[in-house]
C-alpha cells in the first residue's frame, strides 16, 4: 500500500516499523529507479520518498509517478542537500506533491497526514 524510498537503510527500517505499527503494508526501495520498478509492478496508493538519493533521484521518481500514476499520493521527506543550499522541499511542493516533511520529522504528523490523504 506504501512504497518507502530512502537510501539510508536504518531510516527505511524504523519508518517501515512505524508504518506497520499503524497497519500499513510497506515495500522498500533504496533508490528512485527500484521504487519506480516496484510501482510499475504493482501500484501503491502512497509513495514516501527522500529527495537526495543516488541513481534516479527523488525528483525524477516524483515526476514519473505523477505522470504514470495520477491517483498515487506522494509524500516527500528530506534532510536537505549535501552540497548546496537548495530548498528541495519547496521545489517538491512546486512539483505538486501531496505533502512534505523535513528531517527529523514527527512520525505522528506523518501518520495523521497519511490518514487524511487516505480518505
Amino acid at each position, binding site marked *: 500500500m506504501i512504497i518507502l524510498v530512502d537510501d539510508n*537503510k536504518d531510516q527505511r527500517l*524504523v519508518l517501515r516499523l512505524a508504518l*506497520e505499527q499503524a497497519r500499513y503494508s510497506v515495500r522498500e526501495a533504496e533508490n528512485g529507479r527500484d521504487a519506480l520498478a516496484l510501482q510499475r509492478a504493482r501500484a501503491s496508493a502512497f509513495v514516501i520518498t527522500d529527495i*537526495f538519493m543516488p541513481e534516479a533521484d527523488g525528483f525524477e521518481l516524483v515526476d514519473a509517478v505523477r505522470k504514470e500514476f495520477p491517483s498515487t499520493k506522494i509524500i516527500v521527506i528530506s534532510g*536537505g*542537500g549535501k552540497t548546496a*543550499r537548495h530548498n528541495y522541499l519547496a521545489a517538491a511542493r512546486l512539483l505538486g506533491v501531496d505533502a512534505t516533511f*523535513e528531517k527529523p520529522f514527527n*512520525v505522528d504528523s506523518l501518520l495523521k497526514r497519511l490518514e487524511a490523504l487516505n480518505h
Partner: protein
Amino acid sequence: MRLRSHLVLLVVAALVPPLIFTAYVMRQDLAEQREILDRGMRTTARALSLAVDGEIKSSLAILETLAASDNLDSGDLKGFHELCVRATAGREGAYIVLFDRLGQQLVNSSRPFGVPLPNPLRETKAVSADARYPLLPLGGAAPVRKVLETGRPVVSDLFIALDSRRPTIGINIPVVREGALRYVLEMSIEPEPLVRGLLAQRLPEDFVASLLDSQGLVIARTHNFAGRLGTPLAPQLAAQARKADEGTGEGRTREGMDVVHAFTRSQTTGWTISLGVSQEVIGASMSRSLGLLTGGAAITLILGIGAAIVLGRRISRPISLLAGSAGAMARGEHADLNVSAVRELRELHGALVEAGQAVRERATEHERRLAAEEADRAKDEFLAMLSHELRNPLAALTTAAHVLRAAPPGDAATAGAQGVIERQTQHMVRLIEDLLDITRVRLGKLSLKQETLDLAAVVSEVAQPWRAAGPLAGRATMSMQLSPVWVHADRARLEQIVSNLLDNALKFTPASGEVHVGVRQEGEKAVLQVTDNGRGIARESLSRIFDPFVQGEPTLDGGGDGDGLGLGLALVRRLAELHEGAVSAESDGAGHGAVFTVWFPAVAAVSEPRLAPSKLESGASLRRVLVIEDNHDARQMLGAVLEMDGHEVREAKDGASGLTIAAEVNPDVVVVDIGLPDIDGYEVARRLRAGAGGRTIALIALTGYGGGEDHGRARAAGFDAHLVKPVSMERLAQVIAELAASSRATPA
C-alpha cells in the same frame, strides 16, 4: 603624425607668413629706393645740363657783347681782333672767329692778326682725316651755314677745328647791321673746360656723367674722357636717349659696366647729359638687404625647427615612457619614471602612478573579496552538508523512538529500533569526533604525543580487524606488503590516518575489488601507500580531494550508512602535515581506482626493536584487573587481551556488580566504562576511591569522547587515566604498566 612633426609644422606656419610679408615689404622698399635713385639721377642730370647751359649762355653773352662792338661798324678788324683776344684771355681753349657771309674767316683770336685764314665752307674734305676721331667732321661749316640761313644763334656739334686740328665746339651768332646779316661770330671752345665743369659738380665717384652733342657723340665725360671723346654712347643707352628728352633706363656701357642710366636733353643746346651708376653699387646695397632677409629667415627657420624638434623630443620621450609604464602597470608591474621637465607631463605621470595604484588596490581587493566569497561558499556548503548529515540520523532516531513508544513490550520491532538507535548514534558520534578533530587541527589545539614507532606494525594492527571482517561484511579483499620503517609519531593519530585511508578505500571499492596496503622506506621517507581498484577519482577532483569541507564527489553519497562529512581525507592531510609529512592522491580517472600515498620522515630504528606486548612484559608486574563494561563484546575482548598479557582478570557488566566484585577481589587496576546502564563510571570511581584500599587502586576510564571536559571530569572523579574508545590494546597495556610502576614507587 609625430608630435615633433606637429611642432615643426607649427613653427613653419608661424614663421613663413611674416617672412613672406617682410619680403614683400622689402621688395616695395627696394622699388622705392630705386625710384628715389632714379629721381635723384634725373635731378643730377638736369643740374649738370643746366650747368652746361650756363656755360654756353655766358659764352653767348660774350659773343653778343663782341657783336655790338664799334670796331665792326667801322670795319676796324685789327681792333676787333685785339678785342677778341682780350675777351677770351681768361678762358682756356676758347677763341673767337669772325666769318664773312661767304664763310671766310676774317678774324681768328687764336692766330695773329693778318695771317691767312681758312674758309670752312670751301673746305673740300668734309671728314677729318684724324684717326682718333673718325666720326667728327673737319671744320665747323654746318653751324656757320645754318646761322647764315636762319639768322639765329646756333650751338654746334663737335668738329675738328680747321686751324687747331683739335675737337672743338662752336657757338655761333649772327652779326646784324642795319637789318642785314653782315658777319657770323663764333666762339670755339675745346671740350676740356666743360669736363672740368662736370667734375666741378662733385658727383659721387660711382656716377659716370657724359655730355653728348645732338649726334650722340661724347663732348665731355667724367671718366676716360680722352678715350671716349668724339665716340658715340653705347647703342642701348644711345637708343634710350634718342627716344625722349628725359628718362631713365638700364644698360651696359662700352666699358662693359652694367649701369642704371638717367638722361636729359637741353633745349638750349640740343645736347644730352647721360648719367650712369653701376648696377653693382646699387645692387650691392639691395642684395645686402636681400641677403640679410634671406639669411635671417633661414636662421630663424632653422632655429625654430631645431627648437621644435628638441622641444618635441623633450615632450614626446616622457610621453613614450609614460605610455610604456602605463602598459607595465596594466601588466601589474611596478613602473618608475624619470620625471619630465614639462609640468603637465609630471602631473600626468603622477596621475598614472595613482591610477596604477588604484587599479592594483582594486585588483587586490577583488581577489580578497573572491577569496572571502569562496570561503563563505565553502562554509555554507559545509553547513548544508552538516545539516544533511545530522538530520538523517536524527530522523532515524526520532522514528525509532516513536516505534519504541508504540510497540508492545517484547515486540520484534523493539529490537530493530534499538539496533537502529545504536548504529545511528555511533554514526553521529563518529561525525562529531571528526568535526572536533578537524576543528582542533585547524585551531592548532591538537598536540602530538610523539614516540618512535614502527609504521608497519601500526598499520598491521589497524588493518587486522578490517582484514578479518572484510569478506564477511561484503567488503573488498585486502592484501598487505609491510617492511619495518620507523617514524616519530603520535600513535593515536597515526592509527587515525591509517584507518581513514582504509575506510576511504574500502568505501569506494566493490566487494569484488581489492585493496592493497604497502609500507616501505624510500630514502629519508617512510611511505604508506593504499591502492585500490575501485571507483577512482575524476581528474578535476584530484586537487581538491584533501580540502576540508569539500567532498570529492557529491555523487559518492551512495556509500549508504558509511557516508560522512568528507572530513576523513582532510584529517589525513592535516595529521600528516603535523608530522612533517605529506599526502598525495593519484587516479587515472573515474572507474580506474586510486592510489593514496602518505609519507613521513623516517627515523633511525630504536636500538632494540620489539613488539609492543613484550615491552609490557618487561616493565609490568602481573596484576589483578577488573573490567567494568556493559558491552559484552568489548568486555570479553578487553578481558581476553589482558589475560594474554598475564594479568588476572575479572569482569563486570554494570556498576553495581563491578563494585561488588571489587570489594571481593581487591583489584590493583579497574578499567571502567563511563557509560554504564545503572550508575555511571564517574560514580563507580568515586565509590571505589572511597572504599577499602581505594587510595592505591589504579583507575582507568574508558569513554567515547576525547574532549578536555571529559578528561577533567574523569580526573575529578578519581581516575588515574582516561582512554578514548576504541581503545588500542597496546595503549591500554602501556597505561597499566605505567600505573603499576608508579604505584610500586608509592608505598601502600
